[in-house]
């Protein structure tokens, strides 16, 4: 069985390699103008060049920083506020519906408001990223807190646990699958908003890099940037999966 999985994996990589070869052929035969579509060879060369000169490194780190700070701030605030609302019945009655109402709001629409208030600054970007990323986390936390098995609260009562102990030992772990799912969604939101803010505010990062490359019709650099953004999305989501698997090991045994 395990050997079979490896063979499938290899075959799957071969297919992906086939697509890259096809892309190379399309580029070589100039089926699409090289101004728009560089071959994978040129994109790869640009990636290497960018990293050896250090240009791309600093852009990558810029984007990662925007994303990480915004996401972390959103996670902390989202879990704290979500826990506060989710663990109190009056808050759930009075506040939660307003939040649910705001959920379908396209968060990027607050970018102009943030620009008006804070200008084209790093602070504006972090605020927008955090604001966008907080929703899935906060709503998932509220939901997770509201869905805690009532029997566990009774166990906590008969053990005379303090309110703080109940939150940390019962409610938070019980809500953790929801919270982590929310954090995973937010990771994607944070990456997208980082790119948008970099494009709009000209902040140091991959978003700005791809835009400048496009303006200058340096398609190889442009594709290098896009590939790097794809890798960023992939690596962060894999890291999140690993964290989830570790933290939720107890869930695997439940199925």
């Amino acid at each position, binding site marked *: 069985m395990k050997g079979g999985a490896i063979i*499938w994996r290899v075959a799957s990589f071969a297919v992906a390699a086939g697509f890259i070869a096809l892309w190379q052929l399309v580029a070589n035969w100039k089926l699409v103008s090289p101004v728009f579509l560089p071959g994978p060879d040129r994109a790869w060369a640009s990636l290497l060049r960018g990293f050896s000169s250090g240009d791309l490194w600093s852009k990558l780190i810029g984007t990662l920083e925007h994303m990480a700070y915004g996401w972390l701030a959103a996670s902390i605030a989202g879990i704290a506020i979500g826990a506060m609302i989710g663990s109190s019945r009056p808050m759930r009655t009075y506040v939660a519906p307003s939040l649910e109402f705001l959920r379908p709001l396209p968060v990027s629409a607050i970018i102009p408001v943030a620009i008006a208030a804070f200008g084209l600054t790093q602070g504006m970007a972090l605020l927008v990223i955090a604001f966008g990323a907080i929703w899935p986390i906060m709503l998932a936390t509220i939901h997770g807190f509201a869905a805690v098995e009532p029997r566990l609260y009774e166990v906590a009562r008969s053990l005379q646990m303090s309110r703080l102990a109940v939150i940390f030992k019962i409610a938070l772990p019980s809500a953790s699958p929801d919270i982590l799912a929310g954090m995973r969604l937010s990771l994607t939101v944070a990456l997208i908003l980082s790119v948008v803010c970099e494009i709009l505010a000209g902040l140091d990062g991959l978003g700005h890099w791809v835009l400048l490359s496009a303006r200058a019709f340096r398609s190889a650099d442009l594709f290098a940037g*896009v590939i790097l953004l794809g890798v960023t999305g992939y690596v962060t989501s894999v890291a999140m999966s690993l964290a989830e698997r570790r933290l939720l090991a107890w869930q695997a045994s439940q199925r």
Partner: protein
Amino acid sequence: MTLDRAKPLMLPIGALLAFEGWARATHLQSDSLAPPSEIVAALAGALADHSILAATRDTLFATFAGLAIGSFIGLALGIAFGISDTLDRLMEVTVEAVRPVPSIALLPIALIALGFGYRMEIVIVAFACIWPILILSRAAVRSVEPRLMEVSRVLRLPAAQRVLKIIIPAALPRIFVAFRLSAGIALIVAVTVEIAINPLGLGAGIMLAQQALRPDLMLAYLVWIGAIGYALNMLLTVAQRRLFGRAALSGDSL
């Protein structure tokens, strides 16, 4: 009962009144904030001169065109991957390599290839919509009751008929959930593209209002965009309930 229904409204109404009062008391002068009364007035004005309606039409056109294209591609791939395990396994690496590219990163590529306008926006929206539809419809097809598949085999239905008569109808409730989620994503991506770069629709409208230092109009756009997002979600949720009953909503967890 009426009191219970009013409870969720108390916070937003209270906040609006407090803000209005505060803005009046301090004679608020700001580039980013405006009292609710002025926002309402600006919204009424933009509705009266049809500017916000035209922008809405542009945004929704790009949203739905992208959604349609993305749904079609995502559904075709999702059904194919759901039926054929071989195909799914062979394409796994390719899909996993392309999927995490944030849709907005394609913006510069679409920009130099297609220029400003509907086309580039539609392409980006479509790209964003493919993935949720693909993944959820693949899961939906896989979870089609195996008995039904056996029935189709016993009846010796040809592949195309099997897809049309058995698989799609059986998986439809869950596919619709995917469609509803994608519609939300489509709107968000469309507005984001407009805010970032494309000079059309609601996103461009709100950016213009900001640059013109019209906070009332800017916030009117914000409220309007929120209302459109809410209405779209509401409409599709109601449609889903009508078409497939309440049971379909349980498949909501992503």
